[in-house]
Protein backbone atom coordinates (compact mmCIF):
# COMPACT_ATOMS: atom_id res chain seq x y z
CA UNK A 1 0.00 0.00 0.00
CA UNK A 2 2.57 2.50 1.09
CA UNK A 3 4.59 1.67 -1.99
CA UNK A 4 1.80 2.17 -4.46
CA UNK A 5 0.88 5.39 -2.80
CA UNK A 6 4.47 6.54 -3.08
CA UNK A 7 4.38 5.69 -6.79
CA UNK A 8 1.34 7.84 -7.31
CA UNK A 9 3.19 10.66 -5.70
CA UNK A 10 6.39 10.26 -7.61
CA UNK A 11 7.26 13.62 -8.97
CA UNK A 12 4.93 15.48 -6.67
CA UNK A 13 6.76 18.41 -5.15
CA UNK A 14 7.56 18.35 -1.46
CA UNK A 15 4.39 19.30 0.29
CA UNK A 16 4.00 22.63 1.94
CA UNK A 17 0.50 23.32 3.15
CA UNK A 18 -0.74 26.59 1.77
CA UNK A 19 -4.52 26.47 1.79
CA UNK A 20 -4.94 29.70 -0.22
CA UNK A 21 -3.18 28.12 -3.18
CA UNK A 22 -6.11 25.75 -3.76
CA UNK A 23 -8.51 28.65 -4.12
CA UNK A 24 -6.61 30.30 -6.88
CA UNK A 25 -5.04 27.33 -8.61
CA UNK A 26 -6.94 24.78 -10.67
CA UNK A 27 -7.96 21.19 -9.96
CA UNK A 28 -4.42 19.84 -10.26
CA UNK A 29 -3.24 21.86 -7.31
CA UNK A 30 -6.22 20.72 -5.24
CA UNK A 31 -5.44 17.10 -6.05
CA UNK A 32 -1.81 17.58 -5.15
CA UNK A 33 -2.71 19.19 -1.86
CA UNK A 34 -5.07 16.31 -1.11
CA UNK A 35 -2.47 13.69 -1.96
CA UNK A 36 0.11 15.63 -0.02
CA UNK A 37 -1.98 15.71 3.12
CA UNK A 38 -2.68 11.98 2.83
CA UNK A 39 0.97 11.33 2.25
CA UNK A 40 1.97 13.31 5.33
CA UNK A 41 -0.64 11.55 7.44
CA UNK A 42 0.40 8.14 6.19
CA UNK A 43 4.01 8.97 6.84
CA UNK A 44 3.14 10.22 10.31
CA UNK A 45 1.60 6.86 11.22
CA UNK A 46 4.74 5.09 10.10
CA UNK A 47 6.92 7.48 12.08
CA UNK A 48 4.92 6.94 15.26
CA UNK A 49 5.05 3.16 14.87
CA UNK A 50 8.75 3.33 14.14
CA UNK A 51 9.43 5.49 17.17
CA UNK A 52 7.56 3.08 19.43
CA UNK A 53 9.60 0.15 18.18
CA UNK A 54 12.79 2.14 18.48
CA UNK A 55 11.94 3.15 22.00
CA UNK A 56 11.14 -0.41 23.02
CA UNK A 57 14.38 -1.59 21.48
CA UNK A 58 16.35 1.04 23.37
CA UNK A 59 14.72 0.19 26.68
CA UNK A 60 15.32 -3.52 26.17
CA UNK A 61 18.99 -3.05 25.29
CA UNK A 62 20.27 -3.73 28.83
CA UNK A 63 18.58 -7.12 28.71
CA UNK A 64 20.06 -8.10 25.38
CA UNK A 65 23.47 -7.14 26.72
CA UNK A 66 23.28 -10.08 29.14
CA UNK A 67 20.88 -12.40 27.33
CA UNK A 68 20.79 -13.44 23.68
CA UNK A 69 17.59 -12.75 21.74
CA UNK A 70 17.06 -16.40 20.96
CA UNK A 71 17.77 -17.44 24.56
CA UNK A 72 15.20 -14.92 25.68
CA UNK A 73 12.57 -16.25 23.27
CA UNK A 74 13.06 -19.90 24.08
CA UNK A 75 13.96 -19.65 27.76
CA UNK A 76 11.43 -20.44 30.44
CA UNK A 77 13.15 -19.01 33.55
CA UNK A 78 12.07 -15.66 34.78
CA UNK A 79 13.99 -14.56 37.83
CA UNK A 80 14.74 -10.88 38.39
CA UNK A 81 17.08 -11.77 41.27
CA UNK A 82 19.44 -14.01 39.34
CA UNK A 83 18.67 -11.96 36.23
CA UNK A 84 17.58 -14.94 34.22
CA UNK A 85 14.90 -14.03 31.74
CA UNK A 86 12.99 -16.21 29.29
CA UNK A 87 9.69 -15.32 27.68
CA UNK A 88 8.53 -18.65 26.32
CA UNK A 89 5.68 -19.25 28.82
CA UNK A 90 4.31 -15.78 28.06
CA UNK A 91 4.59 -16.23 24.32
CA UNK A 92 2.98 -19.63 24.60
CA UNK A 93 0.14 -18.38 26.79
CA UNK A 94 -0.54 -15.45 24.49
CA UNK A 95 -0.70 -17.67 21.43
CA UNK A 96 -2.75 -20.42 23.03
CA UNK A 97 -5.39 -18.15 24.56
CA UNK A 98 -5.74 -16.19 21.33
CA UNK A 99 -6.04 -19.37 19.34
CA UNK A 100 -8.73 -20.73 21.65
CA UNK A 101 -10.56 -17.44 21.29
CA UNK A 102 -10.47 -17.54 17.51
CA UNK A 103 -11.39 -21.21 17.26
CA UNK A 104 -14.41 -20.69 19.48
CA UNK A 105 -15.50 -17.27 18.26
CA UNK A 106 -15.19 -17.58 14.50
CA UNK A 107 -17.74 -20.35 13.87
CA UNK A 108 -20.21 -18.67 16.20
CA UNK A 109 -19.57 -15.33 14.53
CA UNK A 110 -20.06 -16.73 11.03
CA UNK A 111 -23.32 -18.30 12.11
CA UNK A 112 -24.53 -15.09 13.70
CA UNK A 113 -23.49 -12.96 10.75
CA UNK A 114 -25.22 -15.32 8.32
CA UNK A 115 -28.35 -15.32 10.41
CA UNK A 116 -28.40 -11.55 10.72
CA UNK A 117 -27.76 -10.85 7.05
CA UNK A 118 -29.40 -13.78 5.27
CA UNK A 119 -32.01 -15.56 7.31
CA UNK A 120 -33.49 -13.26 9.92
CA UNK A 121 -36.57 -11.31 8.77
CA UNK A 122 -35.47 -7.89 7.59
CA UNK A 123 -37.20 -6.05 10.39
CA UNK A 124 -35.60 -8.26 13.03
CA UNK A 125 -31.98 -7.92 11.89
CA UNK A 126 -31.15 -4.70 13.79
CA UNK A 127 -32.49 -6.21 17.00
CA UNK A 128 -29.96 -8.98 16.62
CA UNK A 129 -26.91 -7.07 15.50
CA UNK A 130 -27.19 -4.21 18.00
CA UNK A 131 -26.73 -6.33 21.15
CA UNK A 132 -23.72 -7.99 19.55
CA UNK A 133 -22.25 -4.57 18.97
CA UNK A 134 -22.89 -3.66 22.60
CA UNK A 135 -20.47 -6.41 23.55
CA UNK A 136 -17.74 -4.30 21.99
CA UNK A 137 -18.53 -1.41 24.30
CA UNK A 138 -17.98 -3.34 27.53
CA UNK A 139 -14.63 -2.45 29.15
CA UNK A 140 -12.26 -5.38 29.36
CA UNK A 141 -11.98 -5.16 33.14
CA UNK A 142 -15.71 -5.83 33.28
CA UNK A 143 -15.15 -8.89 31.13
CA UNK A 144 -12.48 -9.91 33.62
CA UNK A 145 -14.93 -9.54 36.49
CA UNK A 146 -17.54 -11.52 34.61
CA UNK A 147 -14.91 -14.15 34.02
CA UNK A 148 -14.03 -14.31 37.71
CA UNK A 149 -17.60 -14.34 38.92
CA UNK A 150 -19.26 -16.54 36.30
CA UNK A 151 -16.93 -18.14 33.82
CA UNK A 152 -14.26 -19.54 36.13
CA UNK A 153 -16.66 -21.20 38.60
CA UNK A 154 -18.70 -22.58 35.73
CA UNK A 155 -15.62 -24.00 34.06
CA UNK A 156 -14.39 -25.48 37.31
CA UNK A 157 -17.62 -27.16 38.33
CA UNK A 158 -19.22 -28.09 35.00
CA UNK A 159 -17.39 -27.56 31.76
CA UNK A 160 -13.91 -28.81 32.58
CA UNK A 161 -15.07 -31.95 34.40
CA UNK A 162 -17.37 -32.69 31.49
CA UNK A 163 -14.66 -32.12 28.87
CA UNK A 164 -12.30 -34.24 30.93
CA UNK A 165 -14.77 -37.10 30.97
CA UNK A 166 -15.80 -36.84 27.35
CA UNK A 167 -12.57 -35.84 25.65
CA UNK A 168 -10.00 -36.72 28.30
CA UNK A 169 -8.14 -38.84 25.77
CA UNK A 170 -7.04 -35.60 24.09
CA UNK A 171 -4.05 -33.96 25.77
CA UNK A 172 -5.86 -30.58 25.70
CA UNK A 173 -8.44 -31.72 28.20
CA UNK A 174 -6.31 -33.48 30.79
CA UNK A 175 -5.59 -32.48 34.35
CA UNK A 176 -7.48 -31.11 37.32
CA UNK A 177 -10.26 -28.60 36.65
CA UNK A 178 -8.98 -25.41 38.19
CA UNK A 179 -11.09 -22.86 36.40
CA UNK A 180 -8.30 -20.34 35.98
CA UNK A 181 -6.15 -21.01 32.96
CA UNK A 182 -5.85 -20.95 29.20
CA UNK A 183 -9.42 -22.07 28.66
CA UNK A 184 -10.95 -19.40 30.90
CA UNK A 185 -8.88 -16.64 29.33
CA UNK A 186 -9.47 -17.98 25.82
CA UNK A 187 -13.24 -18.23 26.23
CA UNK A 188 -13.44 -14.77 27.70
CA UNK A 189 -11.40 -13.48 24.76
CA UNK A 190 -13.77 -15.30 22.43
CA UNK A 191 -16.70 -13.29 23.76
CA UNK A 192 -14.64 -10.11 23.56
CA UNK A 193 -13.68 -10.55 19.91
CA UNK A 194 -17.09 -11.83 18.85
CA UNK A 195 -18.54 -8.40 18.00
CA UNK A 196 -15.57 -7.52 15.80
CA UNK A 197 -15.76 -10.74 13.84
CA UNK A 198 -19.55 -10.65 13.58
CA UNK A 199 -19.85 -7.08 12.41
CA UNK A 200 -16.99 -7.21 9.92
CA UNK A 201 -18.23 -10.53 8.51
CA UNK A 202 -21.79 -9.25 8.32
CA UNK A 203 -20.69 -6.12 6.48
CA UNK A 204 -18.86 -8.23 3.93
CA UNK A 205 -21.81 -10.60 3.52
CA UNK A 206 -24.11 -7.64 2.93
CA UNK A 207 -22.00 -6.64 -0.05
CA UNK A 208 -22.71 -9.91 -1.88
CA UNK A 209 -24.17 -8.80 -5.20
CA UNK A 210 -27.85 -9.68 -5.37
CA UNK A 211 -27.15 -10.96 -8.89
CA UNK A 212 -24.99 -13.75 -7.51
CA UNK A 213 -27.66 -14.92 -5.14
CA UNK A 214 -30.21 -14.75 -7.91
CA UNK A 215 -27.92 -16.79 -10.14
CA UNK A 216 -28.02 -19.64 -7.64
CA UNK A 217 -31.72 -19.30 -6.91
CA UNK A 218 -32.67 -19.24 -10.57
CA UNK A 219 -30.98 -22.61 -10.94
CA UNK A 220 -33.15 -24.07 -8.23
CA UNK A 221 -31.04 -23.42 -5.15
CA UNK A 222 -32.66 -23.33 -1.75
CA UNK A 223 -32.04 -20.33 0.47
CA UNK A 224 -29.29 -22.21 2.24
CA UNK A 225 -27.69 -23.29 -1.04
CA UNK A 226 -27.86 -19.76 -2.36
CA UNK A 227 -25.87 -18.76 0.71
CA UNK A 228 -23.23 -21.43 0.35
CA UNK A 229 -22.97 -20.79 -3.38
CA UNK A 230 -22.89 -17.01 -3.41
CA UNK A 231 -22.55 -15.38 0.00
CA UNK A 232 -19.83 -17.64 1.35
CA UNK A 233 -17.54 -17.60 -1.69
CA UNK A 234 -17.98 -13.87 -1.92
CA UNK A 235 -17.25 -13.35 1.78
CA UNK A 236 -14.51 -15.82 2.54
CA UNK A 237 -11.67 -13.32 2.23
CA UNK A 238 -13.60 -10.86 4.37
CA UNK A 239 -14.39 -13.48 6.99
CA UNK A 240 -10.75 -14.44 7.10
CA UNK A 241 -9.80 -10.80 7.51
CA UNK A 242 -12.39 -10.42 10.26
CA UNK A 243 -11.00 -13.47 12.07
CA UNK A 244 -7.48 -12.15 11.89
CA UNK A 245 -8.67 -8.80 13.16
CA UNK A 246 -10.20 -10.66 16.08
CA UNK A 247 -7.00 -12.61 16.58
CA UNK A 248 -5.05 -9.37 16.66
CA UNK A 249 -7.33 -8.01 19.30
CA UNK A 250 -7.04 -11.20 21.36
CA UNK A 251 -3.24 -11.16 21.21
CA UNK A 252 -3.00 -7.72 22.71
CA UNK A 253 -5.74 -8.00 25.29
CA UNK A 254 -4.32 -7.42 28.76
CA UNK A 255 -6.77 -6.89 31.57
CA UNK A 256 -9.23 -9.73 31.17
CA UNK A 257 -6.49 -12.22 30.43
CA UNK A 258 -4.45 -11.12 33.43
CA UNK A 259 -7.48 -11.67 35.63
CA UNK A 260 -8.28 -15.13 34.28
CA UNK A 261 -5.20 -16.90 33.01
CA UNK A 262 -3.87 -17.78 36.44
CA UNK A 263 -0.57 -15.91 36.08
CA UNK A 264 1.57 -18.96 36.51
CA UNK A 265 4.77 -19.30 34.51
CA UNK A 266 3.88 -22.60 33.12
CA UNK A 267 3.79 -24.28 29.74
CA UNK A 268 1.17 -26.95 29.45
CA UNK A 269 -0.57 -28.59 26.56
CA UNK A 270 -3.68 -28.90 28.72
CA UNK A 271 -6.07 -26.00 28.35
CA UNK A 272 -7.20 -26.48 31.95
CA UNK A 273 -3.76 -25.47 33.24
CA UNK A 274 -2.98 -21.94 34.38
CA UNK A 275 -0.50 -19.95 32.33
CA UNK A 276 0.69 -16.44 31.64
CA UNK A 277 0.71 -14.01 28.74
CA UNK A 278 2.97 -11.28 27.37
CA UNK A 279 0.65 -8.37 28.15
CA UNK A 280 -0.14 -9.84 31.56
CA UNK A 281 3.48 -10.05 32.66
CA UNK A 282 4.12 -6.49 31.51
CA UNK A 283 1.09 -5.21 33.41
CA UNK A 284 1.87 -7.20 36.53
CA UNK A 285 5.56 -6.47 36.86
CA UNK A 286 6.24 -3.11 35.32
CA UNK A 287 5.38 -1.12 38.43
CA UNK A 288 7.78 -3.19 40.57
CA UNK A 289 10.61 -3.55 38.11
CA UNK A 290 13.47 -1.35 39.24
CA UNK A 291 16.67 -2.50 37.61
CA UNK A 292 17.28 -1.86 33.95
CA UNK A 293 17.59 -5.48 32.98
CA UNK A 294 14.19 -6.39 34.40
CA UNK A 295 12.63 -3.36 32.71
CA UNK A 296 14.48 -4.35 29.59
CA UNK A 297 13.02 -7.85 29.73
CA UNK A 298 9.50 -6.43 29.99
CA UNK A 299 10.17 -4.08 27.07
CA UNK A 300 11.45 -7.08 25.14
CA UNK A 301 8.15 -8.84 25.87
CA UNK A 302 6.42 -5.83 24.34
CA UNK A 303 8.72 -6.05 21.36
CA UNK A 304 7.90 -9.72 20.86
CA UNK A 305 4.19 -8.96 21.04
CA UNK A 306 4.76 -6.30 18.43
CA UNK A 307 6.62 -8.71 16.19
CA UNK A 308 3.90 -11.35 16.57
CA UNK A 309 1.15 -8.92 15.61
CA UNK A 310 3.27 -7.57 12.77
CA UNK A 311 3.87 -11.04 11.37
CA UNK A 312 0.23 -11.83 11.83
CA UNK A 313 -0.77 -8.76 9.86
CA UNK A 314 1.60 -9.62 7.08
CA UNK A 315 0.26 -13.16 6.98
CA UNK A 316 -3.27 -11.82 7.07
CA UNK A 317 -2.70 -9.55 4.12
CA UNK A 318 -1.10 -12.34 2.16
CA UNK A 319 -3.87 -14.80 3.01
CA UNK A 320 -6.66 -12.38 2.20
CA UNK A 321 -5.27 -11.61 -1.24
CA UNK A 322 -4.62 -15.29 -1.86
CA UNK A 323 -8.18 -16.19 -0.95
CA UNK A 324 -9.66 -13.26 -2.84
CA UNK A 325 -8.11 -14.37 -6.08
CA UNK A 326 -10.00 -17.61 -5.88
CA UNK A 327 -9.25 -20.48 -8.16
CA UNK A 328 -7.62 -19.43 -11.39
CA UNK A 329 -7.93 -23.01 -12.35
CA UNK A 330 -10.07 -25.51 -10.65
CA UNK A 331 -9.55 -29.22 -10.40
CA UNK A 332 -12.73 -31.15 -10.86
Amino acid at each position, binding site marked *: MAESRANVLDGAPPMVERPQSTDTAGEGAGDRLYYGVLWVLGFFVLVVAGLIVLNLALVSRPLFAVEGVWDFVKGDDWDPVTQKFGALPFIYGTLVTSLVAVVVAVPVAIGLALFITQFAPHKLAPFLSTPVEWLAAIPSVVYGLWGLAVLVPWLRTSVEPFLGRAFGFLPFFKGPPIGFGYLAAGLCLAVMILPTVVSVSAEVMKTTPEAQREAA*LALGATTWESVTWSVMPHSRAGILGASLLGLGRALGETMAVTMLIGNSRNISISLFAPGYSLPAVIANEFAEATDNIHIGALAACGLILFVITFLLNAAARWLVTAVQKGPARVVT
Partner: protein
Amino acid sequence: MNALASSAPDSAPAVAAGAAIATPKVEVQKLNVWFAKNHAVKDTSLAVQVHTVLAVIGPSGCGKSTFLRALNRMHDLVPVARVTGKVLVDGQDLYTREVDPVLLRRRVGMVFQRPNPFPTMSIEENVAAGLVLNGISGNHAEVVERSLRKAALWDEVKDRLGHAATSLSGGQQQRLCIARALAIEPEVLLMDEPASALDPIATAKIEELIHELKEHYTIIIVTHSMQQAARVSDHTAFFYMGELVEMGATEQIFTNPKERRTEDYVTGKFG
Protein backbone atom coordinates in the same frame (compact mmCIF):
# COMPACT_ATOMS: atom_id res chain seq x y z
CA MET B 1 -45.05 -30.53 -8.68
CA ASN B 2 -47.65 -31.52 -11.19
CA ALA B 3 -47.11 -33.53 -14.31
CA LEU B 4 -45.02 -32.14 -17.08
CA ALA B 5 -46.47 -30.66 -20.21
CA SER B 6 -47.98 -33.76 -21.68
CA SER B 7 -51.27 -32.22 -22.58
CA ALA B 8 -50.02 -30.00 -25.38
CA PRO B 9 -50.64 -31.46 -28.80
CA ASP B 10 -47.93 -31.17 -31.37
CA SER B 11 -50.07 -29.10 -33.72
CA ALA B 12 -49.01 -25.55 -34.39
CA PRO B 13 -50.33 -23.05 -31.84
CA ALA B 14 -53.07 -20.73 -32.87
CA VAL B 15 -51.81 -17.60 -34.49
CA ALA B 16 -54.87 -15.50 -33.91
CA ALA B 17 -54.24 -13.24 -30.95
CA GLY B 18 -55.56 -14.55 -27.69
CA ALA B 19 -57.09 -17.71 -29.12
CA ALA B 20 -56.03 -20.77 -27.18
CA ILE B 21 -56.51 -24.28 -28.32
CA ALA B 22 -54.98 -26.01 -25.30
CA THR B 23 -53.90 -25.14 -21.81
CA PRO B 24 -51.26 -22.48 -22.34
CA LYS B 25 -47.81 -23.33 -21.03
CA VAL B 26 -47.70 -20.03 -19.18
CA GLU B 27 -50.76 -17.99 -18.40
CA VAL B 28 -50.67 -14.70 -16.56
CA GLN B 29 -53.86 -13.37 -15.02
CA LYS B 30 -54.20 -9.85 -13.65
CA LEU B 31 -50.60 -9.70 -12.55
CA ASN B 32 -49.56 -6.68 -10.53
CA VAL B 33 -46.14 -5.96 -9.10
CA TRP B 34 -45.30 -3.16 -6.73
CA PHE B 35 -41.95 -2.02 -5.43
CA ALA B 36 -43.06 -0.23 -2.28
CA LYS B 37 -45.35 2.43 -3.85
CA ASN B 38 -44.05 2.03 -7.38
CA HIS B 39 -46.63 0.13 -9.41
CA ALA B 40 -44.23 -1.50 -11.87
CA VAL B 41 -46.51 -4.02 -13.59
CA LYS B 42 -50.21 -3.22 -13.89
CA ASP B 43 -53.02 -5.70 -14.31
CA THR B 44 -51.32 -7.76 -16.95
CA SER B 45 -52.95 -10.83 -18.47
CA LEU B 46 -51.52 -12.91 -21.28
CA ALA B 47 -50.93 -16.49 -22.35
CA VAL B 48 -48.00 -18.24 -23.97
CA GLN B 49 -48.57 -21.48 -25.83
CA VAL B 50 -46.20 -24.36 -25.45
CA HIS B 51 -43.23 -24.41 -27.81
CA THR B 52 -43.61 -20.82 -28.88
CA VAL B 53 -41.50 -17.74 -28.34
CA LEU B 54 -42.95 -14.60 -26.85
CA ALA B 55 -40.97 -11.39 -27.24
CA VAL B 56 -41.52 -8.66 -24.69
CA ILE B 57 -40.69 -5.18 -25.93
CA GLY B 58 -41.08 -1.68 -24.59
CA PRO B 59 -39.10 1.36 -23.57
CA SER B 60 -36.56 1.20 -20.77
CA GLY B 61 -38.11 1.11 -17.32
CA CYS B 62 -41.54 -0.02 -18.54
CA GLY B 63 -41.48 -3.14 -16.40
CA LYS B 64 -40.25 -5.83 -18.79
CA SER B 65 -37.71 -7.31 -16.40
CA THR B 66 -40.14 -6.99 -13.52
CA PHE B 67 -42.76 -8.89 -15.49
CA LEU B 68 -40.31 -11.58 -16.46
CA ARG B 69 -39.03 -12.04 -12.92
CA ALA B 70 -42.57 -12.50 -11.67
CA LEU B 71 -42.78 -15.65 -13.78
CA ASN B 72 -40.32 -17.59 -11.66
CA ARG B 73 -40.93 -15.83 -8.39
CA MET B 74 -37.64 -13.98 -8.26
CA HIS B 75 -39.48 -11.15 -6.51
CA ASP B 76 -39.84 -13.38 -3.44
CA LEU B 77 -36.38 -12.19 -2.48
CA VAL B 78 -37.00 -8.48 -2.81
CA PRO B 79 -38.35 -7.27 0.51
CA VAL B 80 -40.16 -4.25 -0.95
CA ALA B 81 -41.74 -6.18 -3.81
CA ARG B 82 -45.36 -7.26 -3.71
CA VAL B 83 -47.02 -9.45 -6.32
CA THR B 84 -50.73 -10.06 -6.84
CA GLY B 85 -52.60 -11.98 -9.49
CA LYS B 86 -51.93 -15.39 -10.93
CA VAL B 87 -49.18 -16.94 -12.95
CA LEU B 88 -50.16 -20.39 -14.17
CA VAL B 89 -47.63 -22.83 -15.53
CA ASP B 90 -49.35 -25.89 -16.99
CA GLY B 91 -52.48 -24.62 -15.35
CA GLN B 92 -51.06 -24.45 -11.86
CA ASP B 93 -50.75 -21.13 -10.06
CA LEU B 94 -47.20 -20.41 -8.93
CA TYR B 95 -48.23 -18.03 -6.22
CA THR B 96 -49.98 -20.54 -4.03
CA ARG B 97 -48.61 -22.05 -0.91
CA GLU B 98 -48.16 -25.53 -2.29
CA VAL B 99 -45.72 -24.43 -4.95
CA ASP B 100 -42.13 -24.68 -3.87
CA PRO B 101 -40.28 -21.83 -5.58
CA VAL B 102 -37.15 -23.96 -5.57
CA LEU B 103 -38.72 -26.69 -7.69
CA LEU B 104 -40.46 -24.11 -9.80
CA ARG B 105 -37.24 -22.36 -10.73
CA ARG B 106 -35.77 -25.59 -11.91
CA ARG B 107 -38.61 -25.80 -14.43
CA VAL B 108 -38.67 -22.12 -15.28
CA GLY B 109 -35.10 -21.13 -15.96
CA MET B 110 -33.77 -17.62 -16.31
CA VAL B 111 -31.02 -15.74 -18.06
CA PHE B 112 -30.55 -12.37 -16.44
CA GLN B 113 -30.15 -8.99 -18.04
CA ARG B 114 -26.61 -8.66 -16.68
CA PRO B 115 -24.36 -11.72 -16.83
CA ASN B 116 -23.95 -13.20 -13.37
CA PRO B 117 -21.63 -16.21 -13.44
CA PHE B 118 -20.38 -17.52 -10.10
CA PRO B 119 -17.14 -15.56 -9.87
CA THR B 120 -15.16 -18.00 -7.76
CA MET B 121 -15.97 -20.96 -9.95
CA SER B 122 -14.52 -22.21 -13.19
CA ILE B 123 -16.26 -22.10 -16.54
CA GLU B 124 -17.04 -25.78 -16.34
CA GLU B 125 -18.31 -25.59 -12.78
CA ASN B 126 -20.56 -22.71 -13.73
CA VAL B 127 -22.27 -24.67 -16.44
CA ALA B 128 -22.61 -27.70 -14.21
CA ALA B 129 -23.85 -25.63 -11.27
CA GLY B 130 -27.51 -26.35 -11.86
CA LEU B 131 -26.82 -30.06 -12.15
CA VAL B 132 -24.98 -30.08 -8.85
CA LEU B 133 -27.60 -27.96 -7.14
CA ASN B 134 -30.39 -30.23 -8.26
CA GLY B 135 -28.52 -33.42 -7.55
CA ILE B 136 -28.62 -34.48 -11.19
CA SER B 137 -26.02 -37.16 -11.67
CA GLY B 138 -24.63 -38.49 -14.91
CA ASN B 139 -22.01 -37.36 -17.32
CA HIS B 140 -21.59 -33.72 -16.43
CA ALA B 141 -18.78 -33.17 -18.89
CA GLU B 142 -21.07 -34.17 -21.72
CA VAL B 143 -23.85 -31.87 -20.56
CA VAL B 144 -21.35 -29.06 -20.16
CA GLU B 145 -20.09 -29.48 -23.69
CA ARG B 146 -23.57 -29.75 -25.17
CA SER B 147 -24.78 -26.68 -23.30
CA LEU B 148 -21.74 -24.65 -24.23
CA ARG B 149 -22.12 -25.65 -27.87
CA LYS B 150 -25.76 -24.58 -27.86
CA ALA B 151 -24.78 -21.26 -26.36
CA ALA B 152 -22.18 -20.78 -29.12
CA LEU B 153 -19.37 -20.62 -26.62
CA TRP B 154 -17.75 -24.04 -26.84
CA ASP B 155 -15.09 -23.23 -29.40
CA GLU B 156 -13.89 -20.26 -27.43
CA VAL B 157 -13.58 -22.00 -24.08
CA LYS B 158 -13.01 -25.68 -24.80
CA ASP B 159 -9.31 -25.37 -24.01
CA ARG B 160 -9.77 -23.53 -20.75
CA LEU B 161 -12.78 -25.02 -19.04
CA GLY B 162 -10.93 -24.90 -15.73
CA HIS B 163 -10.34 -21.16 -15.87
CA ALA B 164 -12.28 -18.74 -13.72
CA ALA B 165 -15.57 -17.66 -15.25
CA THR B 166 -14.62 -14.07 -14.59
CA SER B 167 -11.74 -14.40 -17.06
CA LEU B 168 -14.32 -14.27 -19.86
CA SER B 169 -15.49 -11.12 -21.61
CA GLY B 170 -18.91 -9.70 -20.83
CA GLY B 171 -20.48 -11.23 -23.92
CA GLN B 172 -18.86 -14.57 -23.25
CA GLN B 173 -20.11 -14.45 -19.68
CA GLN B 174 -23.61 -13.86 -20.96
CA ARG B 175 -23.36 -16.91 -23.20
CA LEU B 176 -21.96 -18.84 -20.26
CA CYS B 177 -25.06 -17.93 -18.29
CA ILE B 178 -27.22 -19.10 -21.18
CA ALA B 179 -25.34 -22.41 -21.19
CA ARG B 180 -25.78 -22.66 -17.45
CA ALA B 181 -29.52 -22.16 -17.75
CA LEU B 182 -29.75 -24.71 -20.58
CA ALA B 183 -27.83 -27.37 -18.69
CA ILE B 184 -30.77 -28.19 -16.43
CA GLU B 185 -33.20 -28.21 -19.37
CA PRO B 186 -35.99 -26.08 -17.99
CA GLU B 187 -39.39 -26.29 -19.63
CA VAL B 188 -39.76 -22.55 -19.81
CA LEU B 189 -36.82 -20.29 -20.44
CA LEU B 190 -36.96 -16.63 -19.47
CA MET B 191 -34.34 -14.52 -21.20
CA ASP B 192 -33.82 -10.91 -20.25
CA GLU B 193 -32.04 -9.17 -23.13
CA PRO B 194 -29.69 -12.10 -23.63
CA ALA B 195 -28.02 -10.52 -26.62
CA SER B 196 -27.54 -6.99 -25.41
CA ALA B 197 -23.82 -7.49 -24.83
CA LEU B 198 -23.14 -9.66 -27.85
CA ASP B 199 -21.63 -8.95 -31.23
CA PRO B 200 -23.69 -9.63 -34.36
CA ILE B 201 -22.22 -13.08 -34.89
CA ALA B 202 -22.88 -14.28 -31.37
CA THR B 203 -26.30 -12.63 -31.51
CA ALA B 204 -27.11 -14.54 -34.68
CA LYS B 205 -26.03 -17.75 -33.00
CA ILE B 206 -28.22 -17.07 -29.99
CA GLU B 207 -31.16 -16.33 -32.25
CA GLU B 208 -30.51 -19.55 -34.08
CA LEU B 209 -30.40 -21.28 -30.72
CA ILE B 210 -33.77 -19.83 -29.80
CA HIS B 211 -35.19 -21.26 -33.00
CA GLU B 212 -33.83 -24.67 -32.11
CA LEU B 213 -34.90 -24.52 -28.51
CA LYS B 214 -38.44 -23.71 -29.49
CA GLU B 215 -38.96 -27.33 -30.42
CA HIS B 216 -38.59 -28.40 -26.82
CA TYR B 217 -38.98 -25.31 -24.71
CA THR B 218 -41.28 -22.37 -24.26
CA ILE B 219 -39.37 -19.13 -24.36
CA ILE B 220 -40.10 -15.62 -23.20
CA ILE B 221 -37.50 -13.13 -24.26
CA VAL B 222 -37.15 -9.47 -23.41
CA THR B 223 -35.44 -7.47 -26.09
CA HIS B 224 -34.77 -3.92 -27.10
CA SER B 225 -34.21 -4.86 -30.69
CA MET B 226 -37.31 -4.85 -32.86
CA GLN B 227 -35.47 -6.79 -35.52
CA GLN B 228 -34.60 -9.44 -33.01
CA ALA B 229 -38.16 -9.65 -31.79
CA ALA B 230 -39.33 -9.94 -35.38
CA ARG B 231 -36.77 -12.63 -36.15
CA VAL B 232 -37.17 -14.93 -33.18
CA SER B 233 -40.67 -14.62 -31.80
CA ASP B 234 -44.09 -15.96 -32.63
CA HIS B 235 -45.89 -13.44 -30.50
CA THR B 236 -44.92 -10.04 -29.24
CA ALA B 237 -46.12 -8.16 -26.19
CA PHE B 238 -45.62 -4.43 -25.99
CA PHE B 239 -45.35 -2.92 -22.51
CA TYR B 240 -45.56 0.74 -21.76
CA MET B 241 -45.28 2.27 -18.31
CA GLY B 242 -46.09 -0.98 -16.57
CA GLU B 243 -49.06 -1.81 -18.75
CA LEU B 244 -49.41 -4.45 -21.38
CA VAL B 245 -50.56 -2.27 -24.24
CA GLU B 246 -50.93 -4.89 -26.89
CA MET B 247 -50.05 -8.47 -27.57
CA GLY B 248 -50.44 -10.38 -30.76
CA ALA B 249 -48.74 -12.34 -33.46
CA THR B 250 -45.37 -10.79 -34.08
CA GLU B 251 -46.12 -9.99 -37.68
CA GLN B 252 -49.31 -8.23 -36.76
CA ILE B 253 -47.63 -6.17 -34.04
CA PHE B 254 -44.97 -4.95 -36.40
CA THR B 255 -47.07 -4.44 -39.52
CA ASN B 256 -50.53 -3.74 -38.30
CA PRO B 257 -50.66 -2.78 -34.64
CA LYS B 258 -54.05 -2.00 -33.19
CA GLU B 259 -52.82 0.53 -30.68
CA ARG B 260 -51.43 3.92 -31.49
CA ARG B 261 -48.72 3.64 -28.83
CA THR B 262 -47.54 0.33 -30.23
CA GLU B 263 -47.31 1.80 -33.69
CA ASP B 264 -45.36 4.79 -32.43
CA TYR B 265 -42.96 2.54 -30.63
CA VAL B 266 -42.34 -0.03 -33.34
CA THR B 267 -41.91 2.67 -35.95
CA GLY B 268 -39.41 4.38 -33.71
CA LYS B 269 -41.42 7.53 -32.99
CA PHE B 270 -40.48 7.25 -29.31
CA GLY B 271 -38.66 5.01 -26.88
